[in-house]
């Protein structure tokens, strides 16, 4: 019997080596594998290259991994945010490398890695400083730059439900980078709200087939979902409204 489920987040991230390239899914809070990132913090791997859309917010999660000096290099589209002070300080002091990639090129490079494409010509970024030094070519009258795949050792992904074969479905815009990152990593680790019996996911609606998934861990449902139905009552970070307003920060 194939069983890719693991008992907890620590088991899910076990064995990630120093120097690994780790993809982290999510766009904003949506689809962020919060529990897996925390487990990676505890796991201890260092010298990491992180591939993610952003470079951490506030002092928790990815920002904390950065603050602990565990990340050597970040590949992302948008590091600078109002609360990216951890990254900002490391970058300004030269303690972290940054490769900024236009978001669509980032997505396509990840997809190319998963799909065995050696390189591709993209129109995005051509003529800008982010394509400086890249090979360019005019094809059918349009100018393109050559971009290479981004492979990872590990991908950390968050999905809504998974089964023991690793089939996954996502929820709304929390899908974002998860499905492509799952294809681009040697080991794909997924946290889900719930592990469901094999056969309960509609094969027409599986977004990530289990072939791309190595480990699945259930981290429990979120406060704003009861039995899979949206019930609301939280802010955009998922904090209960009462609690958020008590903290005086509902943004």
């Amino acid at each position, binding site marked *: 019997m194939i069983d890719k489920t693991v008992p907890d987040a620590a088991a899910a991230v076990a064995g990630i080596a120093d120097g690994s390239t780790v993809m982290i899914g999510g766009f904003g809070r949506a689809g962020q594998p919060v529990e897996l990132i925390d487990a990676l913090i505890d796991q201890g791997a260092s010298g990491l290259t992180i591939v993610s859309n952003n470079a951490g917010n506030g002092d928790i999660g990815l920002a904390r991994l950065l603050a602990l000096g565990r990340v050597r290099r970040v590949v992302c589209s948008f590091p600078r945010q109002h609360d990216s002070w951890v990254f900002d300080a490391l970058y300004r002091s030269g303690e972290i490398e940054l490769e900024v*990639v236009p978001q669509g*090129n980032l997505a396509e490079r990840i997809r190319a890695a998963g799909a065995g494409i050696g390189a591709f010509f993209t129109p995005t970024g051509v003529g800008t400083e982010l394509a400086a030094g890249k090979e360019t070519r005019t094809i059918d009258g349009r100018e393109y730059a050559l971009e290479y795949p981004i492979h990872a050792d590990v991908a950390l992904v968050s999905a809504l439900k998974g089964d023991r074969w690793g089939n996954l479905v996502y929820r*709304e815009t929390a899908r974002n980078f998860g499905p492509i990152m799952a294809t681009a990593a040697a080991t794909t680790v997924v946290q889900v709200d719930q592990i469901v019996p094999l056969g309960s996911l509609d094969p027409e609606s599986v977004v990530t087939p289990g072939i791309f998934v190595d480990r699945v861990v259930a981290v429990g449902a979120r406060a704003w979902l009861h039995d899979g139905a949206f019930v609301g009552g939280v802010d955009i970070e998922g904090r209960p*409204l009462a609690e958020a307003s008590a903290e005086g920060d509902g943004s």
Partner: protein
Amino acid sequence: MTTRITRLELAARIAVDIPEGSYVNLGIGAPTLVADYLPDDQEIILHTENGLLGMGPTPVTGSVDPDLINAGKQPVTALAGAAYFHHADSFGMMRGGHLDVCVLGAFQVSQSGDLANWSTGAPGAIPAVGGAMDLAIGAKSVYVMTDLLTKAGEPKLVAECTYPLTGVGCVTRVYTDHAVFDVVDGRFRLREAFGDNTPASLAELIGLDIAGPHPSGM
């Protein structure tokens, strides 16, 4: 002092030019205001590049869904007829020219249609592009929404951009607080002047020759 329309009036003006049935991406910031002026009785389908077509308005407090956000990471809703997809599919949709319109902000637009809107190029600034370069080439028509002049009075419509470029020759039309211009054959062509603005007054403000409106008004 020449006539300037407000940011909200400009959003309403842009909305008028978006026909029913269009697929539209409204960039982060001022362009999102355009959504409020799209007519309720017409179906215009909004795309957000983080993986949704058929984006609806902001939810009421208490119904905010952390899984359902736009590219600005603000809570949104999904209309009947919506569809979700992953980032590669979403940006393929843009890059492949399937959207009809993108509306974007700008630091500068050049008369050859170059756009600068992602970086001021200030020394020590941390580069962060997000989807800006994808949006710049991501629709059949790329509309810029901007003031004609900076707060310091410098023109934002220029002969050549001095800020780092977002895209080359990508801008179709520029909606400013003074007038609307098409980018045609390496020049700004006046499409509509608001209030007492004239081709001559606009040309003086930006220091560039301006082509007159097309005879047909189109």
